């Protein structure tokens, strides 16, 4: 296990590369999903008011 984590002496480089990739992809995915949900809620909040007014 330690040998695996050691990555033949390149641990810092290999794990930083994988870690940053995972972090960036997760942050982008979550912010996109949250953004889609939040904007949808805002659209739905506006709609009934408009219907009532009609």
């Amino acid at each position, binding site marked *: 296990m330690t040998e695996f984590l050691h990555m033949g002496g390149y641990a810092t480089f290999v794990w930083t*590369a994988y870690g940053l990739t995972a972090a960036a992809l997760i942050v982008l995915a979550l912010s996109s999903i949250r953004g*889609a949900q939040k*904007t949808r809620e805002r659209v739905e909040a506006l709609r009934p008011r408009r219907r009532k007014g009609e």
Partner: protein
Amino acid sequence: MHRFANPAEFNRLADAILPWAKIIMAAAFAYGLYLALFTSPPDYQQGESVRIMYVHVPAAWMSMFTYMVVAAASFTALVWRHPVALLAGKAAAPIGATFTALALITGMLWGKPMWGTYWVWDGRLTSVLVLFFLYLGYMALWRGLDEEDKAGRAASILALVGVVNIPIIKFSVDWWNTLHQPSSVMRMDGPTMPAEMLWPLLTVALAFKAYFIVVFLYRMKLEINLRKLTVLSSIEARG
């Protein structure tokens, strides 16, 4: 093409695709990472550091693929005044910028131990940095201009001008002397790596492609909702 023009139709299509894309993404990530980190051999020259390739190369492919998506969307938007196409470019750009940044950063982390430097201004590295700035410029134009139609048109024109950078990136390693090595996979005479290294690479590439589809569809929903909000609030304002 005109089926996607209707936002409601688009949302239905997106909801049909999303579960499948998510399953493929999860499976490809799990299997790809397993292959990349556990079963694939070290390289005869580069040792274990070659494992960076399995995220670096797919990220670099996606950076160019996504740019072509943005450019195709921009072209469609400019020629056919297609509102959904315009939003498709806007939705894809942040994904492309992220993949480009990741390609650059993982490349630096690979370059330091192997080449002996994080960065050189060779044809390949410089043209990929230009790609990153094209994404930033595209996104900045969308934000920078108040009138959304004008912003979208300016951004789309920039995206189309920037297309020339894609063949430059691809062939930079053949046209000029670079520190970066030539292509190992996308080449006329076939890949220059054995199957046990090619498979993890292609599996992670599939995972990235599925990831793109998932995030792109969510960002499309986001952009369509934003557009609806502008329309609804302008109706509201008019009473």
